[in-house]
């Protein structure tokens, strides 16, 4: 058997075994949450245009098709979107930033030390609160206060992946090549949307960053990686 054919068959089988596993970043990730108003699609965290700031973006309810589906998509007033920041490397949230819709606005609390950590919590109304009118497709609303900017509304999905090719691969229809080369591959998400919450926060509000977890765990030598917050996003529903 020619090597290419051999590997092609193998590739098809291998990808078939992984049929469900690289379908998304976190879109529709588990049956308990898929296609609900609390389903997280993605999390981004990076340095802002102002290098003294960190940007946190959570997207939910994706993917949304353009048109009425996107126009009619709404954040759920019973769901709080919570950015969790770990300042000491124990993967317990030391600070949270919470976003929850009321009326036509998104209310953002924090960064604030949460009164309760873990699975169940409350909206931390003792923390600083800012609000922004929820944007529409053609009306961008941003609030900037105390150096912190907030946004909530529909956006183009930033996630990119050749999902259709993936399905063709796992069906065996395109064995033995596997994924397509650049130029022939197609981005499934490029015409789809999500609901997004963007928060840009001065690093001074985020407290100290701990030793990078990979260094602390001894996986990388000291100094190989910069100190880094551990950041994750959760959605919680009112009981």
């Amino acid at each position, binding site marked *: 058997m020619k090597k290419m054919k051999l590997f092609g068959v193998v590739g098809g*089988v291998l990808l078939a075994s992984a049929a469900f596993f690289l379908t998304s970043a976190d879109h529709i990730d588990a049956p308990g949450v898929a296609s609900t108003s609390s389903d997280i699609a993605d999390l981004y965290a990076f340095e802002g245009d102002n290098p003294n700031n960190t940007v946190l*973006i959570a997207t939910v309810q994706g993917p949304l098709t353009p048109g009425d589906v996107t126009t009619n998509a709404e954040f759920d007033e019973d769901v709080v979107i919570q950015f969790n920041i770990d300042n000491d490397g124990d993967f317990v949230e030391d600070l949270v930033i919470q976003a929850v819709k009321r009326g036509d606005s998104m209310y953002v609390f924090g960064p604030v030390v949460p009164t309760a950590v873990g699975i169940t919590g409350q909206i931390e109304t003792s923390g600083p609160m800012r609000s922004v009118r929820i944007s529409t497709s053609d009306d961008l609303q941003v609030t900037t206060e105390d150096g912190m900017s907030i946004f909530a509304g529909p956006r183009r999905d930033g996630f*990119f992946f050749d999902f259709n090719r993936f399905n063709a691969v796992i069906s065996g229809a395109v064995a033995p090549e596997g994924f397509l080369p650049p130029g022939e591959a197609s981005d499934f998400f490029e015409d789809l949307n999500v609901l997004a919450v*963007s928060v840009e926060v001065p690093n001074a509000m985020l407290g100290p960053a701990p030793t990078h977890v990979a260094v602390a765990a001894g996986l990388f030598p000291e100094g190989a990686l910069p100190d*880094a917050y551990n950041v994750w996003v*959760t959605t919680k529903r009112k009981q």
Partner: protein
Amino acid sequence: MKTYNFPIYILTICAALTFVACGNDDDNVIIQVTCDDGVQNGDEEGVDCGGTACEPCATAIDFSGDYTQEDAMGRPGINTVFNDNDGDKNDFNLALHADRASFAQKFDDRLEFYHDVYAASLGIDPADLDYETNILGLDAPTFAFVLANTDALQVAPNGTTTYFDGVNALTGRTINDDVIDISLTLMFGGTTGTRFDGSDTDGDGMPDTPQLTSDGVDFGDRVVGGFPYLETPNN
């Protein structure tokens, strides 16, 4: 909602006695009458709440109650990639981030399973065809440990922020980081990152491995603008 309606005679007196100082309260009086107009105006922080005149939003609007976790995400794709059944996927979303040790072995098993499928289809003993230590130098148990027990984005406040850019790793995630290719490479790329990359190693013009380390798409025509960074929705 609580409102602050002041007697009209205060306004009247202030207006009439313009030479008499009414103090700063006169500003409040004028602003306060907007606290029930259903519009965010003046220095209100929300609709009819907050600012110098209206009741604080945190008490004027109902934010009470207990909220219980339904979904969680750190690094992209972890739950969908490494949990192999609905129960584990749900459990992972509902587990404390600091309490996911039990998932490490499952993730390791899953990683090996993918390679065992490969081996089995070739007629090779699965023991002879395993995950190979990846470009970050992580062997299978360590890779699985990192994925399960530290499932967060590490975000450097002082340094380049990227999921992986060829130089820096695990310091954030930008919108245009190709997390799919990075993930595929970490899983199937082996020590060099090129183990199953569809390359033509013998120069015959044909790829000698399947392409498993890249899906072939990139950021495309997307643009990362200023805040809020993600683009206007597709129409």
